[in-house]
């Protein structure tokens, strides 16, 4: 350890308020990455203490016990013991415990103490504890634990002053390391009881507010009703608040493109910048507002403690199809976009449940499918009423959403039947106290996720868009050519090649061509069809061209294809990143291709017979 820098590790049970404390200590100066080779998040921040020392703070994953049951917990243990490759053991451990939940949290403190390293205990949420009438004899607790104890309130601006002063001071002496075995582990509970009896008085075990809220939030009837209303409002907000911003961004990139057109000489370079770069980037960044709005609500629900309640209500249903209650949120996010959904599966600690969720997440109807659905439904489905009240077009759209959900359930169920590992995987989920979300924590969380989305995707999508542009622009049509340019390009040849595969689904070569850009980003299929049919825009012109050029059977088949097909490339890239395995990418591409192919084939053949 050098004299002017100190490595500190923050550890504690899940829900101890550790991340809020970390945010309070480091502010925005955080670096989020992964531990080498695994997809467990590694958060590090730094700040300069009053003494001038630089404190490097590592926020370790929340852990209940060193008897690790998940990769997160294993990493926490290895890092603290100095056994994790590439990580130096910390100079000081700050153990964070929720003062309102000491029975559970002190046990882990004792477990950390047995590592025999210098520790400071941060008694967090002291304000909530006082409100509940919990009285803690801090000097006595410190004496009995043999470690300095500091009171903190992570959500208050100067709630961490005492902690900073303490960690900036002398490093406390460590207790001697003790062996870790089952017998001594059972002992820890007895020690906790003794500690609590001697130092803590607690008028009641839980907050009255939690009891009252849970009575309604977990009610078999009202609980589900509340959950439906919350979800409905979130989705309304995503479209109401996100859509205008998305349109604004689209217009902005359109404007940039126009200026580039005016400013640059016409030619391949202009077309690359305007269509490839601005068009492609505009599409991706256009999704950002909707994704951020969705993430905002998910973060607020997460911080408030409601999300585990939702998982509680839905667990049984999810288990019956081979998922877990915790899959609910990632799958919900996937309705906006599968990429944040798959990123969100990090909250599922069990690797098997997590993989199952990742594999079915792309089947949820993401917002990128909507432009394609809207175009085809508008062109082929009549606007007549069904049963007097339902709009036929709306029914088809609903059916497509339902097909995604039912498809995901069937796929998850089949995977459950196929896998060799039939062992029981636990729920064992803590339902934390309700809390008012803090703007600071939500803002930092939003910033992190937004940056991950942008960083990961702009590179991939930009590359693919440029590749697509290249394929559909070269070779240029020969002099005196009559058909649209794409007809003569590499994409045209590929499309005609693909048509051999897709003919049984009723796809002509134009549709087959449009499937190539759709693989990069689904909504570009609309623009690609417009290009091949040589009509401008996405309006009525394109719909008429489509209606004139292919049958109802082909259109329905294409809709079904878009509901299940292995898309988009960025999703597959995220699966690769999040699971660290090309095999899983292969599995998800393979099964979706088969499902989409079979479903579209049946749709086309059956509709052809009937019409």
């Amino acid at each position: 350890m050098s004299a002017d820098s100190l490595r500190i590790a923050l550890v504690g049970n899940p829900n101890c308020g550790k991340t809020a404390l970390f945010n309070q200590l480091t502010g925005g100066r955080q670096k989020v990455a992964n531990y080498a080779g695994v997809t467990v998040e590694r958060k590090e921040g730094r700040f300069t203490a009053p003494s001038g020392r630089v404190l490097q703070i590592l926020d370790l994953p929340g852990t209940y016990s060193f008897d690790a049951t998940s990769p997160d917990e294993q990493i926490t243990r290895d890092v603290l013991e100095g056994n994790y490759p590439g990580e130096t053991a910390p100079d000081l451990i700050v153990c964070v415990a929720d003062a309102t939940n000491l029975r559970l949290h002190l046990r882990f403190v004792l477990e950390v103490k047995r590592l025999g390293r210098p520790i400071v205990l941060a008694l967090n949420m002291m304000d909530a504890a006082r409100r509940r009438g919990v009285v803690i004899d801090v000097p006595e607790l410190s004496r009995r634990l043999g470690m300095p104890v500091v009171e903190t309130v992570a959500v208050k601006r100067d709630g961490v002053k005492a902690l900073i002063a303490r960690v900036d001071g002398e490093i406390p002496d460590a207790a001697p390391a003790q062996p870790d075995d089952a017998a001594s582990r059972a002992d820890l509970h007895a020690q906790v009881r003794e500690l609590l009896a001697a130092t803590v008085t607690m008028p009641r075990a839980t907050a009255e507010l939690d009891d009252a809220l849970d009575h309604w939030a977990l009610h078999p009837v009202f609980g589900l009703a509340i959950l439906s209303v919350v979800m409905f409002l979130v989705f309304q907000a995503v479209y109401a608040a996100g859509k205008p911003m998305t349109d604004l961004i689209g217009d902005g990139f359109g404007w940039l493109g126009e200026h580039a057109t005016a400013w640059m000489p016409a030619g391949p370079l202009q077309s690359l910048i305007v269509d490839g770069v601005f068009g492609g980037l505009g599409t991706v960044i256009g999704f950002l507002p909707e994704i951020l709005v969705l993430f905002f609500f998910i973060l607020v629900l997460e911080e408030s403690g409601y999300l585990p309640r939702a998982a509680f209500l839905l667990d049984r249903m999810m288990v019956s199809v081979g998922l877990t209650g915790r899959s609910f949120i990632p799958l919900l996010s996937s309705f906006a976009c599968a990429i944040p959904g798959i990123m969100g599966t990090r909250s599922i600690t069990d690797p098997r449940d997590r993989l199952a969720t990742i594999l079915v997440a792309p089947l949820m109807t993401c917002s990128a499918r909507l432009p394609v659905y809207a175009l085809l439904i508008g062109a082929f489905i009549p606007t007549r009423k069904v049963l007097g009240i339902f709009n036929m077009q709306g029914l088809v759209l609903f059916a497509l959403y339902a097909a995604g959900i039912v498809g995901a359930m069937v796929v998850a169920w089949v995977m459950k039947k196929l896998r060799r590992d039939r062992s029981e995987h636990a729920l064992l989920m803590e339902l934390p106290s309700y809390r008012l979300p803090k703007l600071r924590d939500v803002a930092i969380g939003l910033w992190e996720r937004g940056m991950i989305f942008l960083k990961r995707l702009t590179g991939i999508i930009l590359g693919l868009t440029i590749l697509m542009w290249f394929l559909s622009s070269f070779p240029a049509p020969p002099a005196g050519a009559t058909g649209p340019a794409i007809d003569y390009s590499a994409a045209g040849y590929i499309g005609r090649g693909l048509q051999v595969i897709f003919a049984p689904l009723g796809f002509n070569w134009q549709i087959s061509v449009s499937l190539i850009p759709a693989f990069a980003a689904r909504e570009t299929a609309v623009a690609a069809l417009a290009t091949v049919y040589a009509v401008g825009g996405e309006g009525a012109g394109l719909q008429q061209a489509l209606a004139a050029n292919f049958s109802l059977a082909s259109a329905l088949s294409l809709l079904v294809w878009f509901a299940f097909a292995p898309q988009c490339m960025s999703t597959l890239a995220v699966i690769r990143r999040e699971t660290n395995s090309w095999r899983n990418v292969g599995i998800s591409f393979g099964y979706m291709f088969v499902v989409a192919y079979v479903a579209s084939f049946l749709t086309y053949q059956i509709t052809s017979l009937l019409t």
Partner: protein
Amino acid sequence: MRLSDLPKGATAVVDRVDDAHASDPIAQRLRDLGFVAGEPVRLVAVGPMGADPLLIQIGSTRFALRRNEAARVMVRVEATA
């Protein structure tokens, strides 16, 4: 009796956690979370479908346990004083 057989709203005291099979990680985790002899527990709520999972209050903490997880925990219902 088993924790999974406790009626909703009832209170009991943990007796022990049984391993469902040799070196059962779920049983060990339950012990680590505080399901040890003498600890009072209460069944606060049950899930809307098949009364599963169960919401168990232990100390100041609430845990959602599936039925077969809760079945590992043996409890005694103490005579109300």
